[in-house]
């Protein structure tokens, strides 16, 4: 088991390195750097000015060196300006050249400086992730139990009317992406023209305090899209369990249907959905971006959009580090959890 986890960790680190390198090289393409120079300096810079701005800010080192500096395995760049001042990657207004550390990368805990928000990336990510965490928590609270209940109810009597109805409902939810259901919900429940005006169409006030009124719609929008898939997986797994030998034995023993479902079937039927729920996290990330944009909730997804549309390299890199680690860690948990829950599976 320990070896299995260790090996998964190795693959995970390799994946994370590859992915961050891809993001790094895509954000550092020449046209992107030119755009960055123009937004940071002056929109009417000539090509030579752009070039000198980029050299002055250390963007003209070879790509692999800069990636190493960002990672913190190579010493940060330093440069002597004509008027005798030393500038460098690790040097800013707070840390003068003399006391600046040699290495300042992700490994040293320095995620860099956001050019859009004009703030430390680590503090931005921390606050934004917190906000998204609240959203995710409520989404999970709504989504997981309702999906499991729908799946179990549909799967316990395969082919019944209840099964047909619930299955169609779950297919319908998987066919409704967040930007469609969000638009429908806002129109029905929040629009001032025709709607019921029960909830608010914007979750901006939820950043200060979550209320029933401002948080229902975003949570519902996100939960609905993910719910259908989990429910269908639960249904399939439940239907399979219900046809197995030991359920027939339990029936022949004369146990009530209730007892069979709750005591015997449920535990085995919930192994597969566990994996599915864990693997839903990467999908939820796309959902987070859409829902936060639609409802104007300034969390992680909103930050990612801001970073990406303004080519804020260090912010975007940190966002992708977070996203990639969320994906990889949930994969790891789902693998380990699966082995743990299902005693028939053994890892060598």
């Amino acid at each position: 088991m320990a070896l299995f986890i260790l090996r998964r960790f190795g693959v995970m680190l390799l994946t994370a390195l590859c992915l961050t390198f891809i993001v790094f090289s895509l954000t550092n393409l020449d046209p992107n750097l030119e755009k960055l120079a123009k937004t940071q300096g002056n929109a009417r810079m000539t090509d030579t000015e752009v070039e000198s701005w980029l050299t002055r800010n250390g963007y003209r080192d070879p790509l692999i060196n800069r990636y190493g500096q960002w990672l913190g395995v190579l010493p940060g760049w330093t440069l002597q300006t004509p008027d005798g001042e030393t500038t460098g990657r690790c040097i800013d207004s707070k840390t003068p050249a003399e006391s600046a550390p040699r290495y300042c990368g992700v490994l040293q805990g320095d995620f860099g400086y956001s050019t859009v928000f004009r703030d430390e990336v680590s503090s931005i990510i921390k606050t934004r992730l917190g906000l998204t965490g609240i959203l995710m928590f409520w989404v999970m609270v709504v989504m997981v139990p309702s999906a499991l209940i729908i799946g179990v109810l549909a799967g316990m009597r395969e082919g019944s009317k209840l099964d047909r109805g619930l299955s169609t409902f779950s297919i319908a939810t998987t066919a409704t992406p967040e930007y469609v259901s969000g638009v429908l919900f806002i129109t029905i429940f929040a629009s001032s023209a025709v709607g019921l005006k029960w909830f608010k169409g914007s979750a901006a006030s939820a950043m200060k305090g979550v209320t029933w009124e401002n948080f229902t719609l975003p949570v519902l929008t996100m939960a609905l899209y993910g719910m259908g898939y989990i429910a269908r997986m639960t249904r399939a797994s439940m239907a399979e369990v219900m046809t197995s030998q030991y359920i027939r034995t339990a029936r022949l023993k004369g146990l009530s249907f209730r007892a069979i479902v709750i005591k015997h079937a449920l535990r085995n039927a919930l192994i597969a959905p566990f994996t599915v729920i864990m693997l839903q996290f990467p999908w939820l990330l796309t959902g987070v971006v859409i829902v936060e944009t639609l409802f104007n909730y300034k969390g992680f997804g909103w930050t990612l959009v801001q970073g990406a549309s303004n080519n804020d390299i260090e912010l975007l890199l940190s966002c992708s580090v977070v996203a990639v680690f969320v994906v990889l860690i949930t994969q790891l948990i789902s693998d380990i959890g699966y082995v743990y829950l299902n005693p028939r599976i053994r890892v060598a």
Partner: protein
Amino acid sequence: MEPLSWGEIAAQILMQFTPVWIALAVTLSLSAMFKRRLGLYGKLYDSSIGLIGFTLVMFWVFTAIFAPMIIPHDPLTAVSGMKNALPGSALPDHIGGHYLLGGDNLARDVFSRMVMGAREVLKIAPAATLFAFMVGISLGLPAGYFGGILDTVLSFIANLVLSFPVILLFYLLVTPEIVASGIPTYLAAVLFLFPILFLVVLWNARYFTQPMQRNIYVGLTLVIGLWLYAGLAFDADPLGLISMPPNVLIVFVSVVFVNAPTVFRIVRGIVLDIKTRDYVAAGQTRGEGPWYIMLWEILPNARGPLIVDFCLRIGYTTILLGTLGFFGLGVSPESPDWGSTINEGRRLLAIYPHPALPPAIALMSLVLGLNLLADGLREESLKD
């Protein structure tokens, strides 16, 4: 002219869709008549869920085909005074007619835009899914069949792409700056090569004992394939017929890129299962080459799950295209595709919900149709 009431709007919309109704009626009745002879497709007519799904999908397919006949107004022309007009509003007298579902915030006809949007979506989604399948199959078959280091490397790359958050990938790939750097062309050059490779290997594996026939098939594939390849990937069609605007190309390529690894994983899984069967062993004993076994023994037997996943994946691709439009990535702002229309409409959603609703419901019904169709196909293909 008077604005229309809701009943009149509904009647008028049904009228506008006349060509679609006729085409649907012909398709459904002809197929239902000969359903016993039509194999899996005919069996679809025995499952109500599958039939509903198929009807929904065909409704949008015919809408896309007959779009120019259906639209009452030009989807790109703005008419002064019709900004955010309510559904059923009459146009000024010198033009005549009505905006059936109202006008958007640039005073264009919402109904016509929705109909033309079906064309935009159905132009890209099925083709992109097909390409993703070609790439996924061409790589998944050898990975599952040969295993070993090839499998390890390909699976690692597939997992790498899959652990990339889709939305981040789109934001990185679908930007004017990336288009300027030429990366989409390189990606397209690699990805579009797979269908040609696939077909050439397919023909060669089957007919290499009959060189005459083999040469004809391979030659035809190469001529047509390379002609399309030059036109689509490099915009260098010698005849000037085939081309793809760079912003559509990047959307197409990124959608293929996102979908292919999942197809790869599915194909690889199926191959791992099927290659232990007796008929594969029989083929190996006969001395068939590995590619013949993969393409002509294993692949036909894997078609059931692949067809089902193909339907689901077109739906997913439609959702992805909508997501791209929703963030305004890759499409021209004029484009009537559903995602960008929803994005434009959402800003005024609280006051004027009517511009955003029709494309939202259209997208939902198309994806729902595809999912129901996939469900029906799965049920029917499991029966035998």
